[in-house]
């Protein structure tokens, strides 16, 4: 496709998934048993044959670099283009950490200028859904728009701005919601398509006027100056802004329809390959309604869980309603309920950990109890 993409590994807002983003950015938060959040939007880009993808990083990007590597597992280790990780001080324009998306884009102008494709796709990486980028670019051409974004009908959050869209798809109004009133409205998903030339001008305009946020300062305010169009994203789509979003979206994967929609609707969700063995179940294992990755050894009870690679759950241990990340060791007779355990947790015999469904207990990386 005649487009390149720029992904934001951080939203430059205050979106934080608790302890999970202490040592990593949003893009590399583990999700769904074997993925990282960035895998979803990246896989949609690969499916749409977008040849060049630049990932903007700010700080804590070591785990992201580990995960993406050369881009090989997404077939993005290309001779021309492919994957590029855009580090904060990659060129002479970046002389301090970027504080917002416009500064970040301004610091990678060289990358944008050197990209040959005509269209630019900008996207956040904390979105779990399959996006049809070909359709977005086509819509951009058909409507002769300046910018096309995606929107989704969802519950109103406190402090969010919804948009109004006319019958042609053009944005013609916006509204700020001071309180969450239990209603639903149309909200922009932070995925944008525009021409490369328009993007370069827009960065200059944004820097001139001190814009910080695409959605807040541009889309929802400048719709009468520019031709801004929006396409509805149908089907399952979750933006993960905090720990509750994260917990619920993981649990959503236990629903067969949602699983099919995300994983089997034609977009292969690609991720880093690790040569782990298949999972082995022992004679005492009792598994109900759980999603379990490769490389685990399970001889205990597991109910309503998402279990990542290489987790060991020993005899007599009971794990319920929890998300257990890579390489955890859960010893005999532990009882774990409503827990989100970051990588490499190790529990001695008989440990009891209980969170609540609306407030899951988070265990930070490498915790030993």
């Amino acid at each position, binding site marked *: 496709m005649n487009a390149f993409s720029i992904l934001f590994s951080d939203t430059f807002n205050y979106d934080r998934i608790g302890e999970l983003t202490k040592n990593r950015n949003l893009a590399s938060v583990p999700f769904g*048993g074997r993925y990282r959040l960035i895998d979803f939007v990246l896989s949609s880009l690969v499916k749409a044959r977008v040849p060049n993808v630049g990932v903007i990083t700010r700080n804590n990007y070591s785990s992201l670099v580990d995960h993406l590597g050369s881009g090989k597992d997404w077939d993005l280790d290309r001779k021309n283009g492919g994957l590029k990780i855009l580090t904060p001080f990659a060129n002479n324009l970046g002389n301090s950490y970027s504080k917002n998306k416009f500064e970040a884009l301004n610091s990678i102008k060289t990358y944008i200028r050197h990209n040959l494709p005509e269209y630019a796709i900008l996207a956040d990486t904390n979105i779990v859904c399959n996006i049809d980028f070909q359709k977005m670019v086509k819509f951009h051409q058909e409507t002769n728009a300046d910018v096309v974004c995606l929107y989704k009908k969802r519950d109103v959050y406190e402090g969010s701005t919804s948009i109004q869209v006319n019958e042609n798809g053009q944005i013609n109004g916006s509204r700020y919601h001071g309180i969450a009133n239990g209603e639903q409205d149309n909200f922009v998903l932070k995925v944008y398509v525009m021409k490369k030339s328009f993007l370069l001008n827009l960065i200059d305009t944004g820097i001139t006027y001190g814009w910080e946020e695409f959605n807040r300062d541009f889309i929802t305010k400048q719709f009468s100056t520019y031709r801004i169009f929006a396409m509805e994203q149908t089907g399952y789509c979750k933006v993960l802004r905090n720990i509750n979003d994260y917990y619920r979206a993981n649990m959503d994967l236990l629903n067969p329809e949602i699983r099919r929609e995300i994983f089997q609707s034609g977009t292969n969700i690609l991720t880093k390959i690790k*040569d782990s063995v*298949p*999972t*082995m*179940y022992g*004679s*005492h294992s009792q598994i109900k309604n759980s999603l*379990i990755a490769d490389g685990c050894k399970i001889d205990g009870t597991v109910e309503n869980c998402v*279990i990542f690679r290489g987790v060991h759950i020993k005899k007599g241990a009971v794990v319920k309603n929890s998300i257990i990340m890579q390489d955890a060791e859960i010893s005999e007779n532990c009882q774990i309920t409503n827990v989100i355990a970051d990588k490499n947790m190790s529990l001695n015999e008989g440990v009891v950990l209980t969170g609540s469904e609306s407030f899951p207990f988070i265990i930070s990386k490498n915790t030993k109890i």
Partner: protein
Amino acid sequence: MIAKKEMVAMLLAGGAGNRLYVLTKERAKPAVPFGGKYKIIDFPISNCVNSSVDTVGVLTQYQPLELNTYIGNGQPWDLDRMYGGVHILPPYLAGATGEWYKGTANAIYQNLHFLDQYDPEYVLVLSGDHIYKMDYAKMLQYHKEKDADLTIAVLNVTMEEASRFGILNTNPDLSVYEFEEKPAKPKSTNASMGIYIFNYKKLKEYLIKDEENPASSNDFGKDVIPAMLNDKCKLFAYPFDGYWKDVGTIDSLWEANMDLLNPRLPLNLSDPLWRIYSRHNATTPHYIDETAKVTDSIISSACEIYGNVSQSVIFANTTVGENTEMEYSVIMPNVKIGKNAKIQYAIIADDAVIEDGAIIGAAPQDYDGEWGIAVIGQGAVIKSGQVVLPKQIV
């Protein structure tokens, strides 16, 4: 000019594997799936990589398409190298003289040009139908210490098994004085594992000699090794004592898969220092439903399990329907199994469809006829309520 390599591996992967029946109808034996996510060939190739042998020729002949696609550029095994890496070597025409590989020795003979490119000191000859983990670097070290012309890895088998193998009779220093192919009355229990390290100069000399002999069957075991012994070349046995299994028959393939369910098996597949690599598809974690019961089993990615599974090995992307009972079975990738089916002591090959209520195989104690593993071939469809008897092959 390509840089010289100390040792190049030649992997014989052209065998038809007739004793695996439908499982090798459309693919060579080394391409048969094994152990939940591997193919048989992953074992010798991973052993090569882990032993720092980075140049591997894979000799193909019988039904090579699946194998060629699988090996590709060798990237999953880290064998996409600038110098060396993995090469698929099919038989080819050379002027008027081209022909199929006539035997194991002839297959290497026809690729002497390939070996000459790398000008190796040593050549490692492997076969593609064994499950084992072995450090070939250690074997090479041994070969050098013994100053041997040929070193053959041997496994200590029982006297009863010995007559199924090539047996090496050795002196106390492990030098070989006699080689007997499948002897009726074996004199020792040192069975050849089909793993050879040759000095390349000697190998080349004997392959050329062997080719000139019209009476030869061009086989390592039958012709080349006896000829070298006859000429008093220095042959040594290299004893190996780990897990090794020939998976050339339905029974041994099934047994080797069942072995993996034994937690005390001396074949550790999750050793981070000796990984078995394989080509992956982008697949999701597997899902086990509320209605399912899974014990003593290996389950791979993207499976959806709604039935009862015990003592089984299930490969990627397989569905097992509600109320289906499965035990002691091997289910290869992309199999769809309906509801209320009963599957015992069976091997079901890739892409098969087992409709609701089908009955496949039976436990030996519940069956009066001639018992064996039931086998369903690639893409076969077993209709609703159909019965497949033990030992039957569909």
